[in-house]
């Protein structure tokens, strides 16, 4: 069991919204008493990736490949789904950015998981569901 957070970068740098989403995911991982893994796709420096640790990611998966430098919905969704399965993630968190909105529905189908779009608060996880 774990929480996976997709950390979107813009030209190799994380924006404030990325750190916010890691903090949000960290809070959820704390509620579940589990670990948080971040996944970054594209060309991001080690120093930049290390910053994710400061916001609560215990592990950072870095997928870098020249062909993945620019966002490709299908490819990125496949990668994140693979990571979710490998990390045994119960919850995958994405930001409500344009890319996030493209990825979330595909991920939901790949992982046979419900998609809660536009969340504006932390969930209630007490009964094994994401409310």
């Amino acid at each position, binding site marked *: 069991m774990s929480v996976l957070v997709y950390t979107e970068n813009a030209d190799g740098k994380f924006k404030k919204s990325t750190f916010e989403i890691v903090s949000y995911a960290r809070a959820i991982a704390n509620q579940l008493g589990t670990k948080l893994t971040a996944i970054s796709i594209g060309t991001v420096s080690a120093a930049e990736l290390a910053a994710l640790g400061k916001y609560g990611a215990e592990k950072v998966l870095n997928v870098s490949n020249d062909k993945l430098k620019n966002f490709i*919905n*299908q490819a990125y969704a496949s990668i994140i789904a693979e990571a979710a399965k490998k990390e045994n993630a119960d919850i995958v968190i994405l930001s409500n950015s344009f890319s996030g909105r*493209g990825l*979330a*529905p*595909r991920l939901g189908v790949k992982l046979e998981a419900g998609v809660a779009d536009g969340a504006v608060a932390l969930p209630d996880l007490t009964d094994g569901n994401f409310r």
Partner: protein
Amino acid sequence: MKILVCISNVPDTTTKITFTDNNTQFNTNGVQFILNPYDEIALARAIELTEANNGSVTVINVGEISTEPTIRKALAIGATDAVRINALPHDAWFVAYQIAQYIKANPFDLILTGRESIDYNGSKVAGMIAELLDIPSVSIIKKLDIDGNSATVEREIEGGKEVLTIPLPFVAGTAEGVAEVKIPNMRGIMSARTKPLNVIEAVSVKTLSDVISYETPAPRGQVKLVPADDVAKLVSLLHEEARVI
């Protein structure tokens, strides 16, 4: 070229939203339903793209019989034929699953939806259909052109746009800018009555999400104006009322 446009029956934009059954159902009493405005854009573009090459535009909706007037409107605007999958649209996953099953039996060159429906604003159906069919998707496009077996689309990104080339078939959610919506003319309205509207039954599928309850947003509070030199009053309001310091 065969294009499928997925349409949604949504409450009119001026609807006063209320809930019933202990806030578990949207109250449809007295509500006017319309064709989702973003779907109208998708439909208009599909008609433009097929006019030139004798193609066809099918509209598909997941809904009960009450959605048929909206489906007829889409036919009046210029769709060739329509399909209604007879079920309540439980959630985006349910809708996408039904539509994907239909597409597996009836392939299309291009599948369009609006970028989101104005009731639930999920932007999910397009991506879900594409994943079920293992084809590409772009959730929010602002421009769409077809050239043979591939398309050029403009995707909105933070602070700009991105131009992509995608092979057919794929799924896209249209936003403003893709096309001007078409007003049905008299001929369209007359022909809509006799254009085919096939009703098919839904297939069963696992439920992945449920709505537990709805709530209307809290009414906006009154603004309290504090004179610029009365710092003591400001501090006391922030401490005692807003409780932020």
